[in-house]
């Protein structure tokens, strides 16, 4: 197990390195020179006729050195000089710094940490609500295979996969408003200030975010349960006279759960992508909105930082799910 863990973590290193190069370089391909952009902004700020020192801006942003040196500084293997004092210090990814925003005087790490709780809360609630819907429906659909309930459940799941979540969100905002004059709350309240108000705001966005994943989970739960229910040991359990509850929950579900856990790992990227759209529609101050704002304002260091953070988060969660396997299924032994 430990050897496997070490190997997995070592395999992450090349992936992360390529990722960091991609994230760093991608920003350089965005049309429009960052220096021009800042110079233009400074001119409008200082008024017409102001002299803007382009070389100073380049030095300020650390753009006065070759790309590989910039990358080295960003990663933190090369020292970054302070543009005023000239003092050098290592501050990059390896030191836990993602750099600074072009437009705001805030470290990117801080900006992300400020938005992270919202996105995590939304994601976790979506995942939990999704499972709460998908597992019972999937199990019921399997044990009552080919009944009306089974068909209804499966049809809803298939329609759920095809429905874009941004459209679903718009429908939830429009029809209750027309029919009952009710619309979902849009003013953000942090959990620490008003827990109930916070949950009230998040319940509908996370339900909508959860449905997309729930449809897939429901279909897989049904398939896996059907597979497991055909096994010999289930027949033995029935013939021993065990109750339906014990056979289904203890004998069948536990074995059907293993691939479902994999699917949940695979859903992390979908959840992240969905959260960007849902945060945008419901006006939630999470990471997705940070990314969209940064892309809109062309604040490229923030874009790189958020992208790298998202990717690392997804990678870590997939690794975590893999680590859970031996606990779920004692037959799996990593060596």
């Amino acid at each position: 197990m430990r050897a496997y863990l070490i190997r997995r973590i070592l395999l992450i290193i090349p992936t992360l390195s390529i990722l960091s190069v991609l994230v760093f370089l991608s920003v350089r391909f965005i049309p429009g020179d960052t220096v021009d952009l800042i110079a233009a902004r400074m001119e409008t700020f200082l008024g017409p006729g102001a002299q803007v020192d382009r070389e100073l801006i380049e030095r300020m942003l650390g753009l006065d050195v070759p790309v590989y040196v910039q990358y080295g500084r960003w990663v933190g293997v090369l020292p970054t000089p302070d543009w005023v004092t000239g003092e050098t210090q290592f501050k990059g990814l390896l030191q836990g710094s993602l750099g600074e925003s072009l437009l705001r005087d805030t470290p990117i790490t801080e900006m992300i940490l400020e938005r992270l709780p919202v996105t995590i809360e939304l994601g976790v609630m979506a995942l939990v609500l999704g499972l709460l819907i998908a597992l019972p429906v999937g199990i019921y659909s399997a044990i009552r295979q080919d009944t009306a309930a089974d068909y209804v459940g499966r049809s809803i799941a298939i329609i759920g996969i095809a429905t874009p979540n941004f459209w679903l969100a718009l429908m939830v905002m429009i029809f209750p408003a027309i029919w009952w004059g009710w619309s979902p709350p849009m003013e953000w309240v942090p959990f620490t200030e008003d827990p109930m108000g916070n949950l009230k705001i998040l319940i509908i966005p996370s339900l909508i975010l959860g449905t997309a994943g729930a449809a897939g989970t429901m279909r897989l739960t049904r398939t896996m349960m059907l597979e497991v229910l055909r096994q010999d040991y289930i027949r033995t359990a029935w013939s021993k006279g065990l109750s339906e509850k014990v056979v289904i929950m203890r004998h069948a579900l536990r074995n059907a759960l293993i691939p479902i856990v994999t699917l949940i790992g695979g859903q992390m990227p979908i959840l992240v992508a969905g959260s960007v759209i849902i945060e945008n529609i419901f006006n939630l101050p999470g990471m997705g909105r940070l990314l969209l704002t940064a892309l809109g304002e062309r604040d490229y260091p923030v874009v790189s930082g958020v992208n790298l953070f998202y990717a690392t988060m997804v990678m870590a969660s997939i690794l975590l799910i893999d680590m859970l396997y031996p606990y779920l299924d004692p037959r799996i032994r990593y060596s």
Partner: protein
Amino acid sequence: MSDATAIPSPVSEPKRRNKLVEFFGRLVREKPLGTACGITILLLILGSIFANVLAPYPYYEMHLADRLTGSSAQYLLGTDQLGRDLLSRILYGARISLVVGLAATAISVTLSSLIGGLSGFLGGKFDLLVQRFCDAWETFPGLILLLTVMSIAGRGLPQIILVLGISGGLGGSRVIRGWVMSLKENDYFLAAEAVGNSKWRAFMRHVVPNVMPVVIIGFSMSIGGIIMSEASLSFLGFGLPVEFPSWGGMLSREGREFMEQAPWLAVWPGLCLTVLIYSLNMFGDAMRDLLDPRLRGAGN
């Protein structure tokens, strides 16, 4: 595999010519829902090809006197804030969705067959390098990656087709690589090499034909995802520019802004999108079941 050819079958010529007819017969008999979805797709394709004939007005024509009117005999689905006919815009929107879906899928099929095929066939260092690159690419949540790349490429039709095609191709290459690697281990491939064929010839003659069904089915099923991605990007303002009546863009602009006064602007484009993606998924499922029963349930 194609082991049925081992025994010469006494199929007469005229019967073989009817294979296509027979296939459609099976489709209608065994997959009524799939057939209905196929017809829906066909109707949408025809609607989008003949949009300029079918649409009552040009999609950009403004009727300022009839702004935000509900459905009427004059405007079947109503109008938007500039008095543009919603039905016409939706018909042209279908054209956009289908053009993006088909073109991006074509790019993605070509690219993933090339990368996946070569990576699986050559193996070794090339495979290792390509796989690490694909790992890094796939770790990005799809939409995040597309958003960033679109902001680099700029908004536009060729850009979105290329971006969706390339990113789909890199993702899909994994599946092709897996199949090529498993087919390479088959005895008939080793036998083909043993009788003196070159490795390349054995690959082209014995691996490629067997991967083709996977390629075709896999990608007929990815069109829906690509159309959904285009709509999502346009919804977030990073897809097609405002002049295009893209369903996602219509939902995000007119649909969101006027959802109280004119809810139909948010209802119809989304409904069409849902119906199109649903039909593509169900039709893809039906085709897969009929063409290659071994893959049944693979998409669940």
